[in-house]
């Protein structure tokens, strides 16, 4: 009998935690569907009396959200391609090619991971302005097409691929690049998915960097556009909530389909941003 009570108590606590976790999301969507006057009511109405979907349209018409979306999509996809390309190539070099100073170089790269991002802000900004890359896609994308952690992750996996496979590939007339492309990459699905998910989430949510390197409305990604919208809009909460919902939604959809891979990626590698 005690056991059942214990179980119930555990579930009760967990459900309470889940409610607290979900609640802000619920409140966001609920407010986004209210009229302005209804959103100001005290005591608050938990559910809108009638769903006002026009808030979403209005938020879209007030600022260039479609443009922000397009920018974020371009940045996310280009960064992903860049990260996958550079990581695969250099991870392969660190795992399977022999050259002097290999380990030293690898360790130095890893120690670069320790450096906090704020250090880079000012000097990178100055470098970008010398390159005339401020307020361009180059400035938003190129600096993030290398991720040292991804190199590390892939290298660890590439090392587990046996040398015999390489010898067999050589006999079949494969070079290093053919071996990487035809054997190593198809055998590395799991770490490649992990690297891709991290890259997508990071680019979609990145804020401080695009805030600094963009200054025209046409170049802003969704997060920066949303921040400016919030500053201008002030207190028209249903509109703000509609815009926030929009900025969150695409990743929630990705999460919905790939939640197992996402959670396992995070828990296996213990990485955050």
């Amino acid at each position: 009998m005690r056991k059942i009570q214990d179980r119930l108590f555990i579930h009760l606590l967990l459900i309470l935690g889940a409610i607290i976790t979900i609640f802000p999301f619920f409140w966001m969507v609920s407010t986004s569907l209210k009229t302005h006057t209804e959103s100001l009511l005290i005591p608050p109405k938990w559910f809108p009396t009638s769903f006002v979907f026009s808030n979403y349209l209005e938020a879209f018409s007030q600022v260039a959200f479609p443009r922000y979306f397009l920018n974020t999509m371009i940045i996310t996809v280009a960064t992903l391609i860049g990260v996958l390309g550079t990581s695969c190539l250099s991870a392969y070099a660190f795992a399977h090619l022999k050259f002097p100073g290999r380990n030293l170089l690898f360790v130095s790269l890893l120690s670069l991971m320790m450096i906090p991002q704020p250090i880079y802000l000012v000097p990178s900004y100055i470098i970008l302005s010398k390159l005339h890359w401020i307020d361009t896609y180059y400035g938003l994308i190129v600096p993030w097409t290398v991720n040292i952690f991804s190199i590390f992750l892939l290298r660890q996996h590439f090392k587990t691929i046996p040398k015999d496979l390489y010898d067999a590939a050589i006999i079949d007339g494969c070079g290093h690049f053919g071996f990487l492309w035809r054997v190593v990459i198809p055998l590395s699905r799991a770490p490649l998915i992990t690297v891709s998910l991290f890259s997508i989430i990071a680019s979609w949510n990145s804020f401080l960097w695009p805030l600094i390197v963009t200054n025209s409305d046409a170049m802003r990604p969704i997060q920066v556009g949303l921040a400016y919208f919030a500053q201008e809009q002030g207190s028209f909460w249903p509109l703000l909530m509609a815009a926030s919902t929009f900025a969150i939604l695409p990743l929630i959809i990705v999460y919905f389909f790939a939640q197992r891979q996402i959670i396992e990626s995070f828990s296996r590698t213990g990485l955050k941003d």
Partner: protein
Amino acid sequence: MVISLLYYIIMKKVYPLLYLLPALLIIVLFRLFPMVFSFCISLTDYGLGGFRKFVVLQNYSKLLCEPKFWQSFLNTIYYVLGVVPLGLFIALFFALLLNQRIKALGLYRTIYFLPVITSLVAISIVWKWIFNPRIGLANYFLGLLGIPKCLWLEEWSGIFQILLSPLGIKLPPLLAGPSIALCAIILMSIWHGLGYNVIIFLAGLQNIPKHYYEAAKIDGAGTWHSFWYVTWPLLSPTTFFVLLMTTITSFQMFIQVYMMEGPTGGNPLGTTRVLVYYLYEKGFAEWQMGYATALAFVLFVIILCLTLVQRQILARRIHYQ
């Protein structure tokens, strides 16, 4: 002979470089060089008009004399001390509950992890709405509990001062503690990071072999004893990792302050200005880039020292299996 030597050189020395070239190029240009460059800028008065003259260590000495710097330093420390231990214990608590071989584990995990992947910008707007001093939900709930309303993100008085004022105690400003505004940001940040820590703890808990618990049970250990003598010591590598990661990321907190206290108002008496936000203000609103990089270096040194100290202290207390 020459051809084979050339072939040898190309295959051994140059060929690997081709694989590394794209990555190294970007790392040198956007990681390594900026770091060296950054230190040089911090020794100049680099501003809107570019480089004018070397001021050597003046930026640093100016920094250390500036009350605003010390205030943002203190705010950052408050924030870290609020988010890290509290977030850690709440996460451990939920991870322990989830580890009880319960039903619907996957569902709980999915829900708890949800905030981690959502954008801090959007979610900060939502919390700003919840903390709205006039019509926000936070005040509505306080009202239900019979507690007087609070200004939340606009309230500058320290939390210790507020807690002690019914006793008639007046604290000096330095001991008044983090402002209610900062506490609200701490609360929201714990909410946002909880799922990540829960997942890491859960992975750590599932790595502890079951037979240790069975052995403890045979020796007559209850729930508390088996936690304190089995779980806690064997979990210590995970705890250490979570501690280190949350400390490092907390020191770099920026988005919450930018969005909730913002460039257009809020930030009551500067009590929510944290170091990175101060850096942003100096570098990209006032364009004092020399000063801002000096600030970035101070932040870097703090994080580096903390990492080393934590490693030193905790390394002796960690039990690897």
